[in-house]
């Protein structure tokens, strides 16, 4: 993956697109989805995810694996749709020929949805009657394991420097670049969670201790820090961290 998604601290981005009302006041009420196709891209991604062929970490990894040119050019939901398309093909839910056929029909204006009676639902398909129940369950990432946390609250730790993913060069990880090789303090221990660096590559859940680690703003940004008082807190898995003497 390109790590273009890992943009914390990057320079060059302009003003936040804060929505304002007609009196130029910041508004808290935009539509949930700006365009119908945003809603559809989002909903088909959720519904296809419910088929159970991939997990949350894999779907994130697929978005991060879009070619750099596409990652930069695509809007948010275009990234979702592109990653979904690649997953559908890779997991063999859809063939490339089928995709090409539907794309060409869409371009020619001949796209036709079958009538409901002609559609045979797959046995894995997420049904409307189950939507609220499934949303209510969610997909917890906490796992009961006998793994005990190595670090205590208040311990001084340093994060991994290059390529935290030990199984794949450039593989998925949740340690952002801006916090690599930095010293922080264990703020809390949050139980054991599925480890994305493995789970995103289909290597199993490998639940490991997850900590919230506090970094002084000056540790991350040096002289650029806006205030010596400010801090940034990240949720980091144990393998990202090494103990330092206090």
């Amino acid at each position, binding site marked *: 993956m390109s790590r273009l998604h890992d943009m914390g601290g990057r320079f060059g981005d302009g003003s936040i697109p804060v929505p304002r009302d007609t009196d130029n006041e910041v508004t808290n009420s935009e539509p949930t989805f700006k365009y119908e196709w945003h809603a559809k891209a989002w909903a088909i991604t959720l*519904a296809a995810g419910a088929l159970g062929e991939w997990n949350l970490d894999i779907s994130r990894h697929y978005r991060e694996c879009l*070619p750099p040119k596409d990652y930069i050019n695509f809007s948010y939901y275009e990234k979702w749709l592109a990653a979904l*398309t690649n997953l559908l093909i890779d997991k063999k839910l859809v063939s490339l020929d089928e995709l090409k056929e539907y794309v060409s029909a869409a371009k020619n204006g001949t796209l036709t949805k079958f009538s409901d009676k002609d559609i045979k639902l797959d046995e894995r398909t997420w049904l409307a009657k189950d939507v*609220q129940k499934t949303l209510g369950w969610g997909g917890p990432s906490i796992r009961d394991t006998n793994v005990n946390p190595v670090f205590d609250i208040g311990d001084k730790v340093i994060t991994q420097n290059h390529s935290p993913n030990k199984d794949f060069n450039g593989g998925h990880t949740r340690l952002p670049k801006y916090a690599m090789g930095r010293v922080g303090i264990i703020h809390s221990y949050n139980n054991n969670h599925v480890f994305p660096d493995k789970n995103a590559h289909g290597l199993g859940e490998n639940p490991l201790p997850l900590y919230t680690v506090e970094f002084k703003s000056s540790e991350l940004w040096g002289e*650029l820090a806006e205030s010596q008082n*400010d801090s940034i807190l990240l949720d980091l898995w144990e393998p990202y961290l090494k103990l330092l003497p206090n």
Partner: protein
Amino acid sequence: MMIGKKNIDESDNHSHDHAHSHLPSDPELRVKAVETLLLNKGLIDSKTLDELIDTYENRIGPKNGAKVVAKAWVDPVYKKRLLNDATSAIRELSYQGRQGENMVVVENTPETHNVIVCTLCSCYPWPVLGIPPTWYKSDEYRSRTVREPRKVLLEFGLSLDPKVQIKVWDSTAEIRYLVLPMRPKGTENMDESELSELVTRNSMIGTGLPKEIK
């Protein structure tokens, strides 16, 4: 010679070793093609799509979070539970599940102001705030909030005293954060439901404050 977009071949914009490079350039058409294919193969059901969209457009949103905040403002025992075990305390109000499986609530005080961001993607507490607004998912918010939160907050019209400590929480795992803003002055006589009307979405992300009493 043609001027503008038309003389760019679609192949110029995509690398061809990915399936998604075969999709049409118009995003609306692109979604329609994939959606129709999945519907016709019976892999998704259109009623499920409608139910999902309706749920997050009309039922799950910042009004939920506002009720949690208002309850914490009027009920100190609830507030204690909320700060100790947010997932359970929020579940008491029947808000739970997807993208809110492990909740943590962080409290604003006169000394500390909390701000939530997800620099790696767009993690956001769906059961209490719904689907994130466009600005939360923007490159600008994701890149700048961890490095210059004070400048970012100014763009939201929020100017903090230099003595106030800012804590920025980057949602890098599956913990989802909600800010408990400070109760506005002059609201002593308001009840829970009136108070919940003062709680803005941005105040629960840390990019705003609750509405003031005029």
